[in-house]
């Protein structure tokens, strides 16, 4: 099974905005950080 997240977030510019903290292929646990704003 699969979960797809799609969401709006501030565009990444000059060090501000949304940034992923994981990359493709990484194994994650529930509750682990995926992205920061």
């Amino acid at each position: 099974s699969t979960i797809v997240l799609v969401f709006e977030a501030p565009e990444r510019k000059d060090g501000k905005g949304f940034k992923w903290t994981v990359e493709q292929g990484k194994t994650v646990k529930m509750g682990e950080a995926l992205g920061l704003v």
Partner: protein
Amino acid sequence: LKMAWDDTPIKWTPIPVGLGITYLGFKHYSTVMSRERQIAEEEDPNDPQRKRRIRPTGPWQVQILSTLPLKALSRLWGKFNEIPLPVIFRPFGFKLYAFIFGVNISEAKNQDLKSYRNLAEFFYREIDPAVRPIDKSSAVVSPSDGKVLMVGEVREGGKVENVKGMTYSLDALLSGHGETKTSSHPSSPAIKFGENENGTTEATTPGGQIVDSHEEFARMNGISYTVGELFSGTEDHIDAKAEDQSLPPGEKGDVAAVVGPKSTSWFRNQLEGPKRLYFAVIYLAPGDYHRFHSPTEWVVETRRHFAGELFSVSPYLQALLPSLFILNERVVLLGRWKHGFFSMTPVGATNVGSIVLNFDRELRTNSLTKDTKADTLEGHGYAEAHYQLASQLLSGHPLRRGEEMGGFRLG
């Protein structure tokens, strides 16, 4: 009786089993072919307004898979796993399953393996909250255990950039059809709708270029989809929604018109500045903990259940069948968070055909009966339900980060 039994001669004759299997195979093949021919006739190719049904196309493996009764197999698999196991077998059986699929039993909330009556219960086990601390400092956390298959940004026009050459458009994932019409777009400044001098609606990018709504932004298996029926279907569908007052009217062409805009004013963007659409795909392996939790603080306002197929969603098949996510059974949850639009879509698979939502008792996935209660929007192929009643103030169901939302069940 003994004499009759002894005196009756036994004569062995071969039963043409092979002939029977060939006949059944031929019968199934001809049924599938006649159904495909009928669909092809229905979709008149030169009709510009035709709705494009999303169908599996791809290499021969996919053709064979698409002729199998996957949903029936999935329901059978579920029934089989609901058979209560003899108590003495349970510890050994579940430890074997754990060994094969890499389950960490020590993390389960209930450590007494004899108390799980069958594999379906063990599969849907709870986990000890202490072993899954919820990250407080990030904006979005992982809704489940699993592997991050894709992360990225949605390009203009709703196209999802990702790995393995798979590209599909979000409109097909979340609204089910590709239509050749200008349609709504999320309330993101990425693409704006406005009336031009001759009164027709047109979409423009931040740079002011007119986005041709008939431009095909994502080509997939020969079927192409136009920009942004993102989560909402065609524009007139939005107008219909706004007119019938079932939702407070949103700005025209604004996804809010579908997901209940005004009443979530406290969700209105806290941050100014341009925004983008981001996406992530997390794959849950058979041994993973299969309940999913809320990835952030948000309000779910609309649920759409697409009763599609149940192909396996293994990474191998995802690479083979690019349109997998928009073919499979899925439950699209649409709502808002502090930065604007937010959606989460659990997608079912052959072995885990059932998707459960703790706050939506009406939802029935992988069932024989069609969705009758929720208002199935004709022609859109999904059953839609709204959660306004869950909270008048928020016009939706509020969720805290890490809160359990539901899960995937076997079969």
